């Protein structure tokens, strides 16, 4: 089942092109414009190279759009005539959903890895502590894959999930100051660091790079808790569609 779903997602070349190509182009583009500039990241006065901020920010942003990998596949299986064919079989359909989610998370992680490697190897982005950054990236991926699927299964509509995730994917990067700097006030500091799950993941990663344990924990714990909550929500929702 895992290989089958891997093949299914591998066939979506256009999707991969968007989810890998876009962030790479955007990172290169913004880097070209602001070469050698440095911005204030807003975390305890720590200053990160702009390229590092861009790499983390765009990798996290496109993980949100990458959530469609799972919910669109689940939608095409369980909210279409295919559901009858699958339900008529003796196969364990919960395993099919889990396999779709797992495959989508792995594919999204590989996309993130390509984006990060491009930045590190080609653009020479300084990205220390990669061995700790990547697991956080994976956590963010799992969260967003679950989020998209929970919305889709709860609403019964791929369109609704797409609309919500697209809106979130457009707003969340702005709230961490990726597209333009946010005012340097206490309120905007909270918005930048904790307002969305993407902001939480961004804060954890910057905390890892800055070796700031309290900052890491302050964002990691809620992100982890929300991921577990979504995981728990998935169980009854899967049961609803995959009898």
């Amino acid at each position, binding site marked *: 089942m895992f290989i*089958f779903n891997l093949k*299914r997602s591998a*066939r979506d070349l256009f999707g991969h092109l968007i989810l890998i190509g876009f962030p790479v182009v955007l990172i290169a583009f913004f880097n070209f414009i602001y070469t050698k500039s440095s911005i204030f990241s807003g975390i305890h006065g720590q200053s990160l190279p702009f390229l590092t901020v861009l790499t983390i920010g765009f990798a996290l942003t496109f993980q949100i759009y990458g959530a469609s990998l799972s919910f669109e596949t689940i939608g095409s299986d369980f909210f279409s005539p295919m559901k*009858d*064919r699958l339900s*008529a*079989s*003796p196969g364990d359909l919960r395993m099919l959903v889990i396999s779709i989610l797992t495959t989508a998370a792995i594919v999204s992680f590989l996309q993130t890895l390509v984006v990060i490697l491009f930045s590190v190897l080609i653009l020479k982005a300084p990205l220390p502590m990669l061995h700790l950054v990547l697991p956080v990236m994976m956590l963010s991926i799992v969260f967003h894959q679950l989020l998209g699927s929970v919305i889709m299964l709860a609403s019964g509509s791929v369109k609704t999930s797409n609309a919500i995730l697209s809106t979130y994917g457009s707003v969340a990067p702005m709230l961490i100051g990726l597209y333009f700097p946010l005012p340097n006030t206490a309120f905007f500091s909270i918005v930048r660091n904790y307002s969305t799950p993407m902001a939480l993941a961004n804060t954890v990663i910057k905390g890892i790079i800055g070796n700031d344990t309290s900052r890491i924990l302050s964002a990691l714990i809620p992100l982890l808790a929300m991921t577990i909550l979504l995981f728990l929500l998935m169980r009854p929702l899967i049961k609803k569609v995959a009898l």
Partner: protein
Amino acid sequence: MIIKMEDVMKRFGRNLALDSFNLEMSKGEVIGLLGPNGAGKTTCIRAIIGLIPVDDGDITVFGTHQNGKNRDIKRRIGYVTQELTIYEELSAQDNLAFFGSLYGLSKEQIAQKIPEVAQIIGLEGRLKEQTKHFSGGMKRRLNIGCALMHDPELIIMDEPTVGIDPQSRNFILEFVKRLASNGASILYTSHYIEEVEAVASKICIMDQGHTIASGTLPELIARIKGDSHILIDVRISSEEKLKELRAIPEIKEAALIDNRYHIVVPGGITVFDKIIAVLSGQTIVNVNSKQPNLEDVFLTLTGKQLRDEA
């Protein structure tokens, strides 16, 4: 007994999809479930497979009560859906392998079955191609092949020829006949009379959720054998004239297809003068009478032309 449905009721809101529906199917039988769109054919199939619970009555499949949860029943059924349910982004081989795995086939069994099924459905040599490049008929055949991977004891085909060219349709009909001659039990739904006539050993006519009649083709025709079927072709037909024809007490049924009035009159009754009187003023091109067929059975029993309904 493979299938037994007793007084099955299924309601969707106010719509009664199955109304005291009864069906019996023995091993090796090919039952053609015939009815217009909306007659309840797909609901009947979904209830047999256990995809929907019924409101009342009882369904047993392979002698076991169908509650939708019995995996053993599911394992023994091959279901060909009305809509195409294949993964078009994948190859025919990947599709066959996936559905084989869903039915618990091992890798070795799948590897053995794929060429066998591909040959049956005429897709050998095309197995590695992405199915989105297939013609409509090839997709339909693959749709059937996916239901055959696990050698089901009962094959349920829900309008398997919808939307395909005559050549592919003939291929599928021949293929169903081959399956039947090999002893397969098949439940075949269609709103095409000629398809059901061609493949079924027993026919069940359903309309508005209940069984109108069932039996072999000769048995069904025998039910209306005493009736005369008069076909009158006119240059320009009229719904008003049809109403007037239906108002003649001696006429059992009357229908209009294009410019042809199809009139059913009980045997021995002379009513021709009344018919001519009604059709006066219309240019009659041809008058004919014919031996009843399944279409006539349907018309006589339901008062509808199946072709018009479909």
